[in-house]
């Protein structure tokens, strides 16, 4: 086992870190960025583009460019989250045979784990380039509210990408690890995560290495991009008032505004005023128009105040759900780039009565925490144990559709627990055991995991039979549920492996496919390199031929011309064999020309030397 990389697989951006010599390091992607946009583009040539490059072609290929696939992972097509994502997705979301959400790209359906795997594969290969060694092991973070399906689906994504996912850990937990928390007994921490497109608040309690999630809340459609938009709108309005020109109609102007707005926003985190200077932004009959505006921090804060306010209620709700008061929180951590804005930090301080910690880059803190967990697994980090807990409560449906919890969330694994139930009707001979996961009181609001029946209960008045339902979860998170009639000893049991909706066969097939794609990528790279060489050689040969070609015999000249033509054609093909052959041919004629040059030169010098 080599290094274990920590991956923050975000809705809008991903970040990868690794622990080296006891220090965490961010791994840059191939383009040099420290974060990678979570975007995958499928081109009609069959290429898979990832990150910034996928983003650049999105507008020309909207139906085949997948954004924010995290909103779909491990979810059913009918779930409200998927339906909401469907409204804002330029790509098609479909339903699979088992009811899962799928993404349709050029007539083929992709499961969300497959799409995530394409991103992960790219991150893995960047990490391998960076470390100069194979990377097979990873820790991936997920939001604290992810259920077993979503966690397993994320794990499967890793598997498809050729990564052995050692652990799935919660994003807020990772942030706490990065801040070195968890070593003291009993600390309560609030993690405020305002990213590019989502807002999450999580309240954690740490007790000797056990990180418990007390509550989570958030707004899945609120993020830094909304803040940028406010500045853009303001600039457009101001400009219209001054010039009567609507910049909304001008794509280039909008692009320039977007970049300027983001820049101004970042500047305002450190300065009281930012200047937005966009000369020649537009023109009318009277000539060119310039946009030159000063945006003060106060003005900016007015523009975004309501966005910041939208995070308040989820925070209060999270505190309430955790049964805590404002003063009970020992530490507040900031995650996500938007938390750099002073207005956000001030509001957070007001909310929790404590200045938040913001020393670690909020875009990277989660990946860093994940890499620390990797260090723990490798034995590099000693004084920290992270125990696995069950993220959401498990239980069964009981009379009236009520959800009765048997194992409470945050229970440390492994665990075994049972409860005794009884029949609701006289002479009832079967009971249905419907296993669910979640925190809601009404069974149907929770996630259904499995259903089975216990038959052959001896006839008895209702309320008399004693049926013991036991839940056992092992360290790998596999749940075994059994129901036993205490009188007859009759027992029925079933194993529930966490499943992402993909069968083992499917996962195997997808792994093979991903490998094939990796192979294709490598080949693509080789072709590119060979073509570059061919192009260079072609240019050189052409140059020397035009200079010294006259020294060759007519036949030779003819054959050189032919070779050059064939080589030019080969530039357009992707056939490795053909490119290689042409390279060899060009090298051959290159030698002929050089020979001719030297012999010609020698011949020319001969008489001169004789003089």
């Amino acid at each position, binding site marked *: 086992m*080599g290094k274990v990389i920590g991956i923050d697989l975000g809705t809008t951006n991903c970040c990868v870190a690794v622990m080296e*010599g006891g220090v965490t390091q961010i791994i840059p992607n191939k383009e040099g960025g420290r974060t990678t946009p979570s975007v995958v583009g499928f081109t009609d040539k069959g290429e898979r583009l990832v990150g910034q490059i996928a983003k650049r072609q999105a507008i020309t290929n909207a139906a085949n460019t997948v954004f924010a696939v995290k909103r779909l992972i491990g979810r059913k097509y009918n779930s409200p989250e998927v339906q909401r994502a469907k409204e804002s997705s330029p790509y098609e979301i479909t339903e699979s045979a088992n009811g899962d959400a799928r993404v349709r790209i050029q007539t083929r359906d992709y499961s969300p784990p497959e799409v995530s795997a394409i991103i992960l594969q790219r991150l893995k290969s960047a990490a391998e380039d*960076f470390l100069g*060694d194979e990377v097979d092991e990873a820790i991936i973070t997920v939001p604290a509210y992810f259920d077993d399906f979503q966690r397993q689906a994320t794990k499967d994504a890793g598997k498809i990408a050729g990564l052995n996912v050692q652990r799935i850990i919660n994003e807020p937990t990772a942030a706490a690890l990065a801040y070195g928390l968890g070593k003291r007994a009993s600390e309560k921490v609030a993690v405020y995560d305002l990213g590019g497109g989502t807002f999450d608040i999580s309240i954690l309690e740490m007790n000797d290495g056990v990180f418990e999630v007390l509550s989570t809340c958030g707004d899945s459609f609120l993020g830094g991009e909304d803040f940028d938009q406010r500045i853009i709108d303001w600039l457009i309005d101001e400009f219209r008032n001054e010039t009567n020109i609507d910049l909304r109609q001008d794509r280039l102007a909008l692009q320039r505004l977007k970049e300027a707005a983001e820049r101004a926003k970042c500047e305002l985190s450190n300065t009281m005023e930012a200047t937005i200077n966009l000369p*020649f932004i537009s023109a009318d009959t009277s000539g*060119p128009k310039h946009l030159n505006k000063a945006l003060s921090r106060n003005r900016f804060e007015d523009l975004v105040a309501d966005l910041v306010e939208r995070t308040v209620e989820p925070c209060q709700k999270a505190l309430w759900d955790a049964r805590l008061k404002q003063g009970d929180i020992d530490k507040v951590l900031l995650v996500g780039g938007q938390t750099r804005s002073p207005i956000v930090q001030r509001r957070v301080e007001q909310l929790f009565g404590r200045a938040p910690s913001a020393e670690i880059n909020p875009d990277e803190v989660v990946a860093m925490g994940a890499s620390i967990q990797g260090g723990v697994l490798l*034995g590099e980090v000693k004084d920290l144990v992270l125990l696995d807990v069950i993220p959401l409560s498990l239980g069964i449906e009981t009379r009236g559709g009520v959800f009765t919890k048997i194992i409470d969330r945050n229970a440390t694994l492994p665990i075994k627990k049972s409860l005794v139930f009884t029949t609701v009707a006289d002479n009832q001979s079967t009971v249905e055991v419907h296993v669910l996961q979640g925190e809601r009181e009404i069974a149907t609001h929770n996630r259904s995991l499995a259903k089975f029946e216990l038959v052959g209960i001896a006839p008895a008045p209702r309320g008399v039979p004693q049926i013991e339902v036991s839940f056992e979860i092992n360290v790998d998170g596999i749940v075994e549920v059994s129901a036993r009639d205490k009188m007859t000893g009759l027992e029925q049991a079933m194993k529930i492996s966490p499943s992402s909706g993909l069968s083992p066969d499917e996962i195997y097939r997808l792994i093979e496919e991903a490998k094939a794609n990796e192979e294709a990528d490598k080949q693509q790279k080789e072709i590119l390199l060979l073509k570059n060489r061919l192009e260079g050689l072609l240019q050189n040969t052409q140059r020397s031929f035009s200079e010294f070609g006259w020294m060759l015999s007519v036949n030779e000249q003819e054959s050189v011309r032919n070779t050059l033509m064939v080589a030019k054609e080969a530039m357009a093909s992707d056939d490795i064999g053909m490119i290689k052959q042409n390279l060899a041919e060009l090298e051959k004629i290159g030698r002929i020309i050089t020979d001719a040059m030297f012999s010609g030169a020698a011949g020319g010098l001969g008489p001169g030397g004789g003089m």
Partner: protein
Amino acid sequence: MTIENTQSSNTANAATTKSQTTPEVETTSSPKITEEQPQLEDLAEDAIISDASETDPSPEENTTTSLMSESEAAQLLIELSDAQERAAKFSEEKKLIYEQLMRRQAEFENFRKRVERERTEVNLQAKANVVIELLPVLDNLERALESAPKGDEVLFENILTGVKLIHRQFLDVLIGLGLSPIKAMGEAFDPHIHEAVTTEANNELPENTVIAELQKGYKLGEKLLRPAMVKVSVRG
């Protein structure tokens, strides 16, 4: 190279097994002790038996010595078992430390190579950081020149020519630093160097052809500084 790689993966493998057993270090090491103990007890019995046979001829003196040696033997045995336990612990620790050392060594080798690689990049990156900040100035200078009206005044013409020369000078400085513009107009759209900001229906040109360049893109050496912002043809 190959040797290093296998070495690092080997040590890393060993480290896996280790990290998996760490929580149970106590339980794994204690069986070893119990395994060795029977031998110790055998030894002890032997010692006592042989002592007893020697004591027979002269009981008086030897009772005390045998008592002495018995307690001494017991003491020594305890010490021996302690020492063995410690030795086992040390060798276990040594193994761990060795593994960690090998892993660090491999890590350091890879780190050294990376630093080497990065050193060449750092220079380019520093240059890139400066040039990228200058690009908007270049853009705006070009925008200014493009929107200059066809002047009829000689004075205006002269100033315009002067500004054009400044533009040329500025561009030359940047080119001297390694800047090169990216081809866009009429090329096939390539997201590696182009950024599509809008599309337009066009059935005459092949699909995905750059039909307008809204903002120039630049490379510094082989490094992409900024993609060209383009309009791309789509089927109408």
